[in-house]
């Protein structure tokens, strides 16, 4: 039974990663597309469940064993993906590795970052999410953004941390 559980988990992950790769390769985007990624994760879990039902029938123990292991792998991937997708540290590391002797002056790094559209892109994504309204160079917080900001401020204080950014 353990072998069929592992096979089911692998099938779910292969379906998820395969679809993820196909969708992401088909069109480049600045958006992390988290809703689409979550839908694909759901399809992956469905594939695991179907494979498990095929192997062992509708037995709850092997079915949930496979689903829980799959959930762990998916959440781990989401964690890595969030970093790869949005992390400034990753951007800095890849910039460093592109330079000739793998060193760069801090001033140049700052200058390049400020001249790039990365910050504006982020504001544009926030505009698409309905958190802010961007018109020309002016940014205004929306009622939805205000609600998010208040929740974030509350949670930051409740968890004893400063929202540093």
């Amino acid at each position, binding site marked *: *039974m353990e072998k069929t559980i592992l096979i089911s988990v692998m099938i779910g992950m292969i379906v998820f990663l395969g679809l993820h790769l196909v969708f*992401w390769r088909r069109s480049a985007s600045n958006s992390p597309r988290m809703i689409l990624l979550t839908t694909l994760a759901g399809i992956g879990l469905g594939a695991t469940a179907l494979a498990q039902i095929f192997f062992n029938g509708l037995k709850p*123990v092997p079915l949930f064993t496979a689903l829980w292991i799959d959930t762990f792998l998916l959440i781990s991937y989401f964690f890595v993906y969030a970093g790869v997708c949005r992390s400034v540290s990753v951007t800095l590391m890849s910039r460093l*590795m592109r330079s000739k002797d*793998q*060193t*760069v002056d*801090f001033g140049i790094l700052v200058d390049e970052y400020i001249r790039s559209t990365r910050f504006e892109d982020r504001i544009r994504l*926030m505009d698409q999410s309905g958190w802010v309204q961007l018109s020309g160079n002016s*940014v205004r917080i929306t009622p939805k953004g205000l609600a998010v900001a208040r929740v974030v401020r509350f949670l930051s204080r409740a968890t004893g941390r400063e929202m540093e950014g």
Partner: protein
Amino acid sequence: MSMSGVLVVSALVSATWLFFVLVHLGALVLFRVRESLILGFMAAAGPAILWRLTGSITVSGEPVPNFLKTAALFLYWAGCIGYVEILSLLSRGISFRVLLDLLRNNGAADLKTLSLSYGDGMGLKGLLAKRLHSLSRAGFLHYQENQVGPPTFLGRLFGGITSGMRTLLRLQQVG
């Protein structure tokens, strides 16, 4: 073992996770203990307790099978990773920080002001310096005064994998 056994194990996983989240929050707010210590404790002690708990119960006279006990640990760790991700967003999320900056600025600002006053006035330059210090502390690169780099072996590995993933997934204009 039937569905009721699975439900009992899920309840134990949830209770253990919730207990350690509360311990973590309590330790952070009341005692200001170093965060990584408590998170490490949460990731290691939680599974040990969970393993003992699931080993000590029987549902309808049947013990919990070992592979369900193992899967319960994975589910618990999934919860820990989700929790760490939320904490990380709450302290380092750039979009959240921009919202708070806007809130301090009566809800509106132009792009240039936002980038200059980002993070309570540290600006984008301060953001980059902060990230570089973190990378240096984590042993990914050398960073002294104005010279950034070279990366360490760990940094090259990290940079190589993450840049490769960005290229593979066509995520070039982000971060």
